[in-house]
């Protein structure tokens, strides 16, 4: 298990990479973008983005804005 932060919340996961984490956490659509430790991770790079203890993962999606 890896302890990390997903959108600011502490979680434990078996996922070894970002793509697996999204799947495990129930993200069903792909109108999402991701960042790992403040660095943007392109959609195609999520599988190769390996997770480590203490990582900060951000998952964002479209919302209204001014």
């Amino acid at each position: 298990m890896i302890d990390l932060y997903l959108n600011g919340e502490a979680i434990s996961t078996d996922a070894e990479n970002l793509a697996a984490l999204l799947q495990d956490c129930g993200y069903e659509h792909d109108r999402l973008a991701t960042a790992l430790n403040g660095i943007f991770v392109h959609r195609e790079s999520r599988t190769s983005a390996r997770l480590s203890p203490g990582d900060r993962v951000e998952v964002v999606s479209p919302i209204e804005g001014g």
Partner: protein
Amino acid sequence: MPEFYNEHVQNALLLGTARYPSPTILEDAIRSAEVDVITVSLRRESGGSNAGQHFWEMIKRLGVRVLPNTASCYSVKEAVTTAQMAREVFETDWVKLEVIGNPDTLQPDVFGLVEAARILCADGFRVFPYTTEDLVVADRLLQIGCEVLMPWGSPIGSGQGINNEFALRTLRSHFPDVPLVVDAGIGRPSHAAQAMEMGFDAVLLNTAVARAGDPVSMAKAFTEAISAGRSAFLANPIEQNDMAEPSTPVLGKAFLS
């Protein structure tokens, strides 16, 4: 009609999508005003919520162009990463670049703004920088690759209208061929008309419509005011005088005293 980065826009009202009473009212406002460009943003999403997907479906249904923002970013790194994420999610290289420098006024950190704009322009983004009315900052933004400038009218959401008309006129005068958008602080359609009469190419606003008693009617009123302001600018308004000038001919007036 304005042109941004070689793309024609049908309506000079660029409309924000936040703070509406409901998604239906937002959608009706966009349709009522025949808006062509809306601003959008990104926020955290929890697994299984699908909230972002629903908003995306509304955008596709409306058939409008999106201008993603980097709202609430206080550092260059945050703004650049947010822009990169927005490009992937919204499938556009347009970005309304905000690097905020003060939480009370929400005014741009112009130093961070120039640096973030330099990075993003070099990375192929088409940057719409939310900036102050400062002429030198504007010049620097153009030098590093921005082809649009978006000076504020007054603080975001304040509804104060245009606080520094002199400086905005100076920008217009110095950069006659650069698309200029007054962004932020607009409260009433008359403020928007004023900006357009000054020769600005477009107006970007959100709160003035979203928080109005009737957002749908207000959105339409803004479109009409912006259109009137543009027509007035093209018609070359008269100069202001200190003293009165009679409009009715004096010559031939009957001598009655």
